[in-house]
């Protein structure tokens, strides 16, 4: 069954997913005071790849990815691709749950076992995924206003602490740290919307996929860049790199007339909201792709075992807060590059060749697979 998502809700879904849990970390730490350059470079590199994601989605318009993959590659190779994306989404969900539980334990619930917090997130994600993509998209279209509003409001309150001298001198350490920072931001989170192939079954128009992917990603990139640069300008480059959660420490400095303080708690709530959406999308993709890999049309009956397996998985992939920050701020890992760059490129090239062949055979027919 295809689930229709309006363009506006699709944009909100992609933007909130990309924002996700990423802004709790000091993004692009390798670049230090030049992180804004890393963000700009990452955005320039990400743009063609995200356009390819959108183009691929547009080429398969009117079909679910399962149907399109089967037509492109045949039955078994398409199932192998689906299994790969299912494992990728499952691993991503495990990492996000691990991040959020560690964040909660470090900052507030120090005596609560991580597994309790993880189970809470997973039960909620399981619930919303069972209701389907449409509910998820509606929820994100409401929540993005709250998340972005709260964070931007908090950043405005931080304005008196901002010092733009923290960005000087520009590129003192050369261009290499900027490139490393850009690759880190690309890997996590700018190219993670690749899994949205499996989420956006039906959009209102053929061109909607471009709006959804490009506007959603650009919104998220700008938002993340603003958060990172303001956090750095408040804390200074050295502290920004050394803190586990710089945005949290930067907002802790807000003090409006000894009245408005402890604003970091509000940031904590927004991290929980956007992180929850990311977990839910990952559970949805892991279940949908697995259903295709196993040859089932419906995915909902697989949601419970997939979601429950994420709780032990979150304790498996990363076990310490240092490990979590390392995994969040690492430079592109091979498996991520493979699933975010290599596979989409192969899918896109194959789809273009197929369509051009069909165009030669049937002139005048609509050019989709």
């Amino acid at each position, binding site marked *: 069954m295809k689930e229709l998502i309006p363009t506006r809700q699709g944009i909100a879904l992609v933007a909130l997913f990309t924002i996700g849990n990423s802004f709790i970390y000091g993004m692009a730490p390798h670049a230090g005071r030049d992180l804004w350059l890393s963000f700009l470079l990452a955005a320039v590199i990400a743009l063609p790849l995200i356009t390819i994601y959108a183009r691929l989605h547009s080429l398969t318009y009117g079909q679910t990815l399962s149907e399109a993959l089967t037509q492109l590659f045949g039955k078994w190779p398409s199932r192998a691709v689906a299994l790969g994306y299912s494992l990728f989404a499952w691993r991503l969900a495990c990492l996000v749950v691990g991040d959020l539980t560690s964040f909660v334990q470090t900052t507030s619930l120090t005596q609560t076992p991580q597994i309790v917090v993880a189970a809470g997130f997973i039960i909620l994600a399981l619930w919303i995924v069972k209701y389907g993509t449409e509910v998820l998209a509606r929820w994100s279209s409401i929540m993005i206003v709250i998340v972005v509003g709260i964070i931007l409001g908090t950043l405005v309150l931080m304005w008196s602490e901002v010092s733009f001298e923290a960005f000087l001198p520009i590129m003192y350490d050369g261009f290499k740290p900027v490139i490393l920072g850009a690759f880190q931001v690309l890997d996590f989170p700018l190219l993670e919307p690749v899994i949205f192939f499996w989420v956006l079954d039906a959009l209102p128009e053929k061109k909607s996929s471009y709006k959804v992917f490009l506007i959603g990603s650009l919104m998220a990139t700008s938002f993340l860049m603003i958060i990172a640069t303001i956090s750095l300008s408040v804390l200074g480059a050295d502290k920004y790199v050394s803190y586990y959660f710089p945005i949290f420490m930067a907002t802790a400095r807000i003090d409006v007339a000894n009245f408005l303080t402890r604003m970091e708690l509000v940031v904590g709530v927004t991290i929980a909201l956007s992180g929850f959406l990311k977990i839910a999308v990952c559970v949805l993709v892991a279940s949908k792709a697995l259903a295709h890999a196993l040859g089932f049309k419906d995915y909902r009956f697989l949601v*419970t*075992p997939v979601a429950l397996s994420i709780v*032990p998985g979150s304790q498996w992939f990363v076990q310490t807060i240092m490990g979590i920050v390392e995994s969040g701020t690492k430079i592109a890992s091979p498996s991520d590059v493979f699933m975010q760059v290599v596979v989409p490129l192969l899918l896109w090239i194959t789809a273009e060749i197929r369509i051009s062949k069909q165009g030669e055979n049937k002139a005048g027919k609509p050019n989709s697979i």
Partner: protein
Amino acid sequence: MVGVIIFGFVLIGGIELYCWPQRPWKEVLAYLLLLGLAAALSVTIYLVPDLPVPEPLAFLAKLIMRLWQGGGK
């Protein structure tokens, strides 16, 4: 504790299967298999907390590191 984990998974599986309006055998089999895998992973992580994480493409990372000394560190 292992017994509690397994009991939890059996309970969830039993209740959910009971709530299904129809139970096609293929879907039931896939569901039980995946639930079994989730339970096995939970028990394994509990018994072996330092279980190594499989990295099928780790050799590529090593190769890139060698090609670009210091890259990725």
